């Protein structure tokens, strides 16, 4: 049972540490110590006395329940967790369900504890119907979850780890090699990609906000774009690990270096496409089409340069960070000094030279080094 605890309960809380920190801060960090009991009493009283508020509360708890169920089912679908079918899955049905209930109650505990406190208050103050509703709701949620887990145990489906949309896509479309990394990010590292995109969008919106009050200056736009690329530097760094771990076979394929370069260019164009759409909408408003073109070329060329630098042997995170900031400041000063075009040409030349020189010399990191 200890192993199941580690696989489901412990792993759930570890993986959602950031989520719980945010929730904890919102519920307990935004109100001063003395007012905290009154704050929560207010919330509980709110949903005990207003059915609209109660409905909203149930919706939030329902969303959290979905998160819990989805986590457990996804874990059960991972190939390296397939042992649950040979262990948990071979127990008598009653014991299987008891374990399922224990897992569900453990990860759904934050809601159950809050509901328990609300029940004590409700019983004291005579709000019987709302407390019955919340009690029944949470009981049904846990029962449904237990049934779903038992059903999955009986009908193992490792393919369920693949999202439905991807399964559909696999049947209808063949992914070109320059989309491998964007797919990897969306499917396997969604948190990293959405966090980066949120920060990147925030920076661009802030740039547009400041530019609204002043005359359109492409240099200000370029500064925003530079920060945007800077935010993507971790994604670029991770690309090397992805290539070294999963795409080493690509180096054995007879693909000319110019095509490899072009494919990489397309990869970064796709990765930055959401930002380009946002930029396009805003630059079109002021008719700055030439600036938009420059911004697109800059962003991709910068990403390509950072990527190409990673082809130098054993360039670790520290060395890479130094390069990222060095390039950032050089480009920044050139842009501020109205040397935009010259800077772009330099970036392109540097990218091509480094990529063409280093690609054949590159030595992929060993699997053990990547895992470290």
């Amino acid at each position: 049972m200890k192993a199941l605890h580690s696989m489901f309960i412990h792993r759930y809380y570890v993986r959602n540490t950031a989520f719980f920190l945010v929730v904890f801060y919102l519920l307990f960090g935004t109100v001063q110590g003395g007012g905290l009991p009154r704050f929560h009493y207010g919330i509980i009283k709110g949903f005990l006395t207003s059915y609209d508020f109660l409905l909203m509360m149930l919706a939030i708890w329902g969303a959290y329940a979905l998160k819990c169920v989805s986590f457990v089912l996804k874990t059960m679908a991972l190939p390296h967790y397939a042992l649950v079918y040979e262990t948990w899955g071979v127990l008598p049905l009653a014991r299987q369900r008891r374990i399922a209930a224990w897992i569900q109650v453990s990860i759904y505990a934050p809601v159950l504890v809050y509901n328990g406190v609300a029940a004590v208050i409700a019983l004291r103050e005579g709000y019987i119907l709302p407390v019955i509703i919340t009690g029944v709701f949470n009981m049904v949620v846990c029962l449904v979850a237990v049934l779903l887990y038992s059903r999955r145990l009986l009908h193992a489906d490792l393919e369920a780890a693949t999202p439905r949309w991807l399964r559909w896509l696999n049947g209808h479309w063949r992914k070109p090699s320059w989309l491998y990394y964007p797919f990897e990010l969306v499917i396997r590292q969604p948190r990293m990609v959405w966090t980066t995109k949120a920060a990147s969008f925030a920076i661009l919106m802030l740039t547009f906000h400041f530019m609204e009050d002043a005359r359109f200056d492409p240099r200000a736009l370029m500064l925003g774009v530079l920060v945007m690329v800077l935010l993507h530097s971790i994604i670029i760094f991770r690309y090397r690990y992805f290539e070294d771990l999963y795409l080493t076979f690509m180096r054995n394929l007879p693909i000319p270096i110019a095509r490899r370069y072009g494919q990489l260019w397309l990869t970064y164009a796709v990765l930055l496409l959401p930002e380009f759409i946002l930029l396009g909408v805003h630059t079109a408003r002021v008719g700055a089409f030439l600036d938009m073109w420059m911004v697109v070329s800059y962003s991709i060329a910068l990403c390509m340069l950072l990527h190409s630098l990673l082809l130098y042997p054993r360039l670790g995170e520290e060395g890479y960070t130094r390069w990222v900031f060095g390039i950032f400041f050089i480009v920044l000063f050139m842009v501020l000094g109205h040397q935009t075009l010259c800077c772009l040409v330099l970036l392109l030349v540097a990218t091509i030279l480094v990529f063409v020189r280093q690609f054949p010399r590159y030595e992929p990191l060993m699997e053990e080094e990547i895992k470290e």
Partner: protein
Amino acid sequence: MISFNQVEKYYGDTLALSIPQLTLEAGIYWIQGENGAGKTTCLKMLAGLLPFKGQVLLDDHIDSRKAPIAYRKKVNYAVAEPLYPEFLTGHELIQLYLDTKGPGPYAVEELARTLGAGSYLQTPVGTYSSGMLKKLSLLLAFLGNPSLILLDEPLITLDVATVAAMYGLISRMHATGVSFMITTHQALSEEGLLLTGTLQVAHKTMVRL
């Protein structure tokens, strides 16, 4: 078929492998050596996955460094423990190989059927067992029109029937002029393969026994 000339592979400042001079005629070669001796390093160099000093010539005229595209078209490689992006299907990988290596004498369906891989190629590789992944990597290595196929530990995780089918494929392809370099800790000659020679990787070099 393949010749090594002053080949040296360093990891940092440490010499991992040095092959001053070695020429091998077409055939099936079994590469022997202890764990960590450098067998996989040697195969990765030959597959164009690792940079090295010196010259490797295929079919007397294709230099691995001067003509990497032509060279890679002629050298296929199946790694010991294959890893592919989990969201790709077997079919997508096969198509990628066919697009780059070009079509070969064997139909994909035939190879898939022979290796027992036909039933799962439309699903993402993330759902494959290690044996299924191994079969896929072998299937990919048999695609195109290679002169040399490098097989790193091809026997691990394969069932008995697939091993026999793979030996049959190797023999058939060898009869059409394809050479093989195979690393394995099992005795290949006892398994029904007619070996041309045995290579020993030890003391940071590779020699023909």
